[in-house]
């Protein structure tokens, strides 16, 4: 599946500003993250700590992904 990834916050330091056009076998949000961790070992510190956003919604683990979707990669937050 083709996806467009937008890294946020400290993930920009690891993945660049993006958007990243990727081609991956993932069909759910959880599968996307598993694939990402395999492809980018530098994400190790964020294992279990990244949320996926689509539009103005956060995705669940089993949320299905669709072709050409823009997925926000959202690391731990530090506003305030």
């Amino acid at each position, binding site marked *: 599946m083709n996806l467009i990834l937008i890294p*946020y*916050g*400290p993930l920009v*330091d690891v993945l660049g500003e993006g958007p990243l056009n990727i081609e991956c076998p993932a069909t759910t*949000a*959880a599968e996307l*993250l598993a694939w990402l961790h395999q492809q980018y070992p530098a994400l190790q510190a964020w294992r*279990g*700590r*990244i*949320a*996926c*956003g689509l*539009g*103005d919604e*956060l*995705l*669940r*683990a089993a949320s299905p992904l669709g072709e050409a979707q823009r997925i*926000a990669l*959202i*690391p*731990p*937050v*530090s*506003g*305030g």
Partner: protein
Amino acid sequence: MKHLCNGPIALEALLACDDPACGAALLFTGCVREHNEGRAVSGMLYTAHERLADKALADICSEALQQFEIRSCRIIHRLGELRLGDISVAIAVQSAHRPAAYEASRWAIEAIKQRVPIWKKEHYIDGASRHLDGHTLDAAL
């Protein structure tokens, strides 16, 4: 984006109390501090997933109104490059009686720090910069 801004936060508007049922108002402001974790700070960059952040801040206002006996809750978070002393976030709560205003304000700032997709990148006087550690969202996978 109702809850986000890129310049100084207009505090006067937040302070305005035109609800005669209110007896108490509490304005919390957070600002950029010269030291953090022992390092001398020169400024701070705030970035956000603006759409999700605005929605999360709206949710926090709604939930505060449901959970506490308050009459209004307004939150503004500033984004972009901030200097020392600049206000990054303001929370204005108004209520008939003061205890609810304190409880709601305190709850709201904690919720902001835990739930809103906004990130700090600290700049230090030695020229270095780094993103701060943060709170993992409940939706993290």
